[in-house]
């Protein structure tokens, strides 16, 4: 990979150890993927926030970096292991909370906007079509690639942080047009329902792996796209996809000679059954990815005029702090039935200390809950889950 004279100086440590380390990381990644050079980015989004995932080793690294490294572009942060103001209510231990706050503080010292959400594109970090960015968090980066039309690779947390500090990223992979073209046509027939889009995404990722799928026959709205992107990224590492007539440039793609596959409600039903491993949830959690304003409104209206069931398990509505602030009425309505939890979600919070079986409408969450949180899982639609509550 070619480095400019200025970049060489950073690599030699002339701008301090934090920038040197960041440049070393970009150079290593650039070498591995045969990048020709570094290209400027306009924003970054970082994973590697929950103390549950990064541990003491990760915290030490971030505190070390935060001594002198600062981000050069708008940089946002993934969910943490707890709600910053309600962690005690969530059953989080104080020692965990202290480490978690230390991680967030280290990011903030580096100039990162600690919004702690996996949907930063809803609340202010919204790259424009064609812009190069460096995003971690598989669901968010797929949304940015596919729906916003910006360009990012599947960054890991440290790679995205390094790119934010340098303001550049190695030019390879999904920054190159040829790697963003569809590789398979998916003819889909499913209900226009959020959970069905999630399950469709799960099946497509599972069957096709790291493909670039081109969907025909569906017209999901932004909430359907958000949850479908998340499921596909989790089950199949899909980082970019197209939906005919919905995503940018979807009508300019050449589909000649591509393999065609078909998925319908039978596949969706089977996926739902296979993801369901439990029966009696002691936690119902929605908001993977974090709920949008529209979803908050929809859930509040579904519960309007109803009473909480006496046998309802604990309920979490996971969203970003910003969306919660935007939706005071809905928050009040939902809080009658459970907690509107911010900054975190059922995957990155240490729920395994208090819960055994979690119900959710997100196939991504269903995919990760058994391995990352030792949970049995019940997969259900919003309507089915709300029936257990009210």
């Amino acid at each position: 990979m070619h480095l400019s004279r200025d970049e060489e100086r950073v690599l030699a440590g002339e701008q301090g150890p934090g920038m040197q380390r960041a440049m070393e990381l970009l150079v290593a990644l650039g070498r591995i993927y045969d990048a020709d050079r570094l290209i400027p980015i306009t924003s970054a989004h970082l994973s590697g926030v929950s103390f549950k995932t990064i541990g003491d080793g990760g915290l030490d690294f971030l505190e070390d970096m935060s001594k002198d490294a600062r981000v050069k572009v708008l940089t946002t942060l993934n969910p943490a292991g707890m709600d910053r103001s309600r962690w005690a209510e969530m059953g989080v231990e104080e020692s965990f909370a202290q480490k978690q706050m230390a991680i967030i503080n280290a990011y903030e010292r580096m100039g990162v906007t600690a919004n702690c959400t996996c949907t930063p594109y809803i609340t202010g970090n919204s790259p424009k079509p064609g812009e190069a960015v460096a995003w971690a968090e598989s669901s968010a980066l797929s949304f940015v690639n596919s729906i916003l039309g910006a360009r990012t690779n599947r960054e890991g947390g440290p790679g995205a942080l390094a790119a934010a500090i340098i303001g550049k990223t190695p030019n390879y992979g999904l920054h190159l047009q040829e790697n963003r073209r569809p590789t398979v046509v998916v003819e889909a027939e499913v209900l226009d329902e959020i959970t069905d889009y999630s399950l469709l995404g799960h099946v497509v990722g599972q069957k096709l792996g790291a493909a670039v799928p081109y969907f025909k026959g569906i017209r999901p709205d932004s909430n359907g796209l958000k949850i479908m992107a998340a499921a596909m990224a989790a089950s199949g590492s899909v980082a970019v996809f197209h939906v005919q007539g919905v995503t940018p440039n979807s009508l300019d793609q050449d589909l000649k000679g591509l393999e065609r596959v078909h998925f319908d409600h039978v596949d969706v039903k089977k996926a739902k059954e296979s993801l369901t491993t439990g029966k009696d949830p002691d936690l119902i959690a929605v908001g993977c990815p974090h709920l949008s304003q529209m979803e908050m409104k929809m859930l509040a209206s579904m519960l309007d005029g109803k009473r909480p069931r006496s046998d309802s398990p604990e309920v979490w509505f996971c969203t970003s702090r910003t969306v919660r602030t935007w939706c005071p009425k809905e928050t009040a309505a939902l809080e009658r039935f459970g907690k509107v939890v911010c900054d975190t979600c059922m995957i990155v919070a240490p729920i395994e200390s208090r819960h055994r079986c979690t119900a959710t409408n997100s196939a991504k969450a269903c995919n990760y809950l058994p391995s990352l949180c030792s949970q049995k899982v019940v997969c259900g639609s919003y309507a089915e889950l709300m029936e257990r509550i009210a």
Partner: protein
Amino acid sequence: MMLHGRGISKGLVEGELLLLQQPFSFLGGVDPKSGLLSGSSGAEGQDITDKAFAFPWGKGSTVGSYTILQLRKEKRLPAAIINHRAETIVATGAVMADVPMVDRIDLSLLRNGDRVLVDGEKGTVDVLGVEGQSVVTSVLMNRGRVLVLKRSDKVSTCQRMWAGVSGYIEPGEEPRQTAVKEIIEETAINDAKLVREGPLLTIRQKNTIWVIHPFLFDSPTDQVTIDWEHTEYQWVLPSQTDQLVLVPGFKRLLGDLGI
């Protein structure tokens, strides 16, 4: 002998080699508190602390990068990492935790317990106490049959095994000159014609790494006069070589030469 790969994470360090035959995930593959490998690594109970840790490539969760940082905190880091092919998770962890790392190394040339000097800047692995020997091996063909010779007890290596026409490349000699010279010495065939040259082949045998330059020659005759280096010879169909005890790597060399 110095092996040349590609530098991924800087630093110069010497260590004892711990070699895994299969891809490795730091998350779940090693206990950060003790540095001991778990069952999923294929080398349960081995300690990676301060070792030159070699495995084909990294796999598994991206959390593996943080496991490497956790190893640093517990002072259980490997001294260096050597891969056949680097990927993001391990490379990221190595750079963050200051572990020298080199990739594009042929791990079949390494043995558990080797002392190695890893240079993450230059991208080299020096296998200490192991000599590199450059040799030629020529395969002669006559009407679809290949010439194999049985090595005598008087040669220094691979006695009584079947081989092609081989010899050390002397200082100042071009491999192709060596090949022609050895054919004349060992078979008395003076007019074999070079058909093609194969890609370099490296083979580890005890404390020697053989760097073999393979050549394919067409022989106009099947009349052979052997010298002291061999006790017998035969012209065989390529498929018949399976029935002979061959010198290491000979089968692969035939494949590389398109036979």
